[in-house]
């Protein structure tokens, strides 16, 4: 295993690999061939630089931690999902109206007003947050202890980490993308092995419940399937 700069916890990473093996073993028993789980330590980010990647690994690992029941963001492959999204239509805001003039400091209720795309916001905000961490805690985000990282994330959420208006929504976007990667279909690189769906009891792409409509107050028994036909 290569060393990931600033990776918060080797323990959670080992746990992720173990989960991957367990999911593969189960799925092999089913008829569909599962897609091989993405190994985070072997993944080459398409969008993120090494420093950005270290930040995203560390931050998502705190936003959805590995401890307790259910997968964490790391086991789910959330960083891979975010990396891929930022090179696609979402990251480049291809569907959005991006013409100026821009008033990034407008009332937040008026929606997205920064001239930046989501990908540009990650690019500008990560160094800004790291600089704040160095100044306040003496190290970049990825090198802080988990409880310090939680303190920083809370400060970001509450607007105490001062960011320029153009990147002020960074925390909100990061958190939203983290949850998307946790719960989206595995074709997008996250929700590895559909473990997040299995954890909450969402059957994924089954999409056929006619005989279940009238079975009231009884837990649905079947596990999830994915768009590519895998089962978990």
């Amino acid at each position, binding site marked *: 295993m290569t060393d990931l700069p600033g990776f918060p916890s080797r323990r959670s990473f080992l746990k992720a690999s173990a989960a991957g093996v367990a999911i593969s073993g189960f799925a092999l028993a089913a008829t569909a061939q599962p897609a091989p789980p993405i190994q985070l330590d072997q993944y080459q980010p398409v969008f993120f630089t090494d420093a950005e990647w270290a930040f995203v690994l560390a931050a998502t690992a705190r936003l959805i*931690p590995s401890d307790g029941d259910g997968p964490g963001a790391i086991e789910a492959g959330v960083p891979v999902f975010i990396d891929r999204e930022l090179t696609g239509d979402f990251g480049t805001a291809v569907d*959005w109206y991006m013409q100026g003039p821009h008033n990034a400091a407008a009332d937040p209720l008026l*929606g997205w007003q920064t001239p930046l795309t989501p990908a540009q916001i990650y690019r500008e905000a990560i160094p800004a947050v790291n600089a704040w961490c160095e100044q306040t805690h003496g190290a970049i985000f990825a090198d802080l202890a988990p409880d310090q990282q939680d303190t920083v994330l809370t400060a970001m*959420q509450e607007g105490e980490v001062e960011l320029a208006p153009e990147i002020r929504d960074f925390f909100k976007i990061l*958190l939203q993308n983290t949850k*998307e990667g946790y*719960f989206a279909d595995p074709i997008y690189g996250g929700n590895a092995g559909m473990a997040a769906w299995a*954890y*909450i009891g969402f059957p994924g792409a089954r999409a056929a419940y006619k005989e279940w*409509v009238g079975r009231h107050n009884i837990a649905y028994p079947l596990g999830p399937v994915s768009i590519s036909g895998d089962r978990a």
Partner: protein
Amino acid sequence: MARQEAKKDVVIVGLGWTGAIMGIELAQEGLEIVALERGHDQNTVPNFQYPNMIDELKYGVRLKMMQKPSQQTVTVRRNEGETALPYRSLGSFLPGNGVGGAGTHWNGLNWRPQAEEMRLRSYIAENWGEQIIPEDMTIGDYPVTYDELEPFFARFERVAGISGTAGNIKGELREGGNPFEGWRSEDYPMPAMPSTWDGVKFAEAAKAAGYHPFPSPGGIASRAYVNEYGMQMGPCNHCGFCERYGCFQYSKSSPQTAILDRLKQYPNFSYRTESEVLRVEMAADGKTATGVTYFDEKAGEEVFQPADIVILATYQLNNVHLMLLSGIGQPYDARTGEGVTGKNYGYQMNGGVTMFFKDEHFNPFIGTGANGFCIDDFGMNNIDYGAEGFIGGAYWRSGQTNGQPIRSMPLPSGTPTWGAGWKRAVGEWYGHAMSIGAHGSCMSYATNHLDLDPTYTDRHGRPLMRMTFNWNANDIRQTQFMKSKMEPLAQSMNPDLMQSSFKKEGAQYDVRPYQTTHNTGGHIMSATPDTGAVNRYSQAWDKHNVFALGAGNFVQNTQYNPTGLVGGLAYWTAHAIRTQYLSNPRPLV
């Protein structure tokens, strides 16, 4: 110089519900018709197929079936003093894109307005006196009555394949239906859909409280169905992917399932996609239109399409935009109250209660867009406006539409939004919550309107349309009233936890969270040319061969989802063109 196409009898702008209805009705008259659709072509196969449609990220979150703001959007401000800014990414409302329009991705909830809503100003005057209507509230009577529209509501329901339980057939009340609805000439085409546990629990509690629950009416097939055009629907399997999605199994009513394949068989009908209409062209005398100019995306050029009749059948916002750009109706001026086009923009005032039951299983992924049970005990015709101090009403519904976990994850208030606490909570609470929604009215006001933006332009250089909209104290009183009635009912169900979400006094319009795609008004119907942009037949007062359809016609929004009224008005207008206009083209009023 624009390329010119061969002249047609009729050009239809936009091929969603109203465009498809006008297309097939006028095709039966033998007219040469072309429909111009801004977006792409799409059909159940291949575009809505399983399993690719069952993709929350792509369609539910990234909104790939929707209008792209990069192509078309509006600017928004809350009042005259604010600088409007572009609605750059979609949030509050989601106009559709492509063939079928918003009719492909709706939830399917299909209602008729109440008779009282169609003559609201008179109804208030008769019962409480006009003096209870606030000065800035610009509500009126529709220049067409419920009784006149009834056959056309029934026609749309038969075409669209609506499931439900009638509550009032020719004045006779029916057990199990909505006793407060307007009269129906016949029952629904299909029986009501079965409900999931949440809807049944709500109905039981509502009945115990003395209310009158009935199954939600919806364009979701409860059994196999064939409509008058020979179009077939298959029974729904409650897949839980209605709103924001195309239906993969021909169960949700849409232009695709109800009309389009039949329409395409008419040799005198054709349609062109990636053809965005830029403006309606006028004859030298200014009294009629000569056709439309559109941008042909594939050829990369402007094209003039001459036609004798122009039907504006785009989404409400885009219809008003085209009219403002083309000089159809005098633009409305909010300072003077003069002018008609852009007047009476309306929306919807919604609220609700979420309840958590830790030991009960709701299986939220089992659902349809029109699932569950409703009550209309707090509807527009059941409220004493004089005593309560507001004008409005709401219908209530409980019935899960989906359990898609990125967006549909109700958690008890106070739950952390991330970290170990959030992760524990999604495991603990997913599938153990249900909600009741109040779908409420939003009146028309002098201050809520549409005009052209002075700063921002689209990719063709046309000014964007500017929306001026904010919540009004009257409608906030309406939703607070619903809160006061709904919380005790929810409490009677003994949830482990419950929480409310209703707008409070001083609430400002927020474009970010999804609220509803029930944008209405802007080219309202009127009895006289100085009070609205179109007459009772959706015919432009000042350009008799231009007809503007859809929710832009609404004098004020109703308390219901708009499609039933939109579909009914489209059949009403089609009938007027067929029986009155074609033989003698002229202003019909």
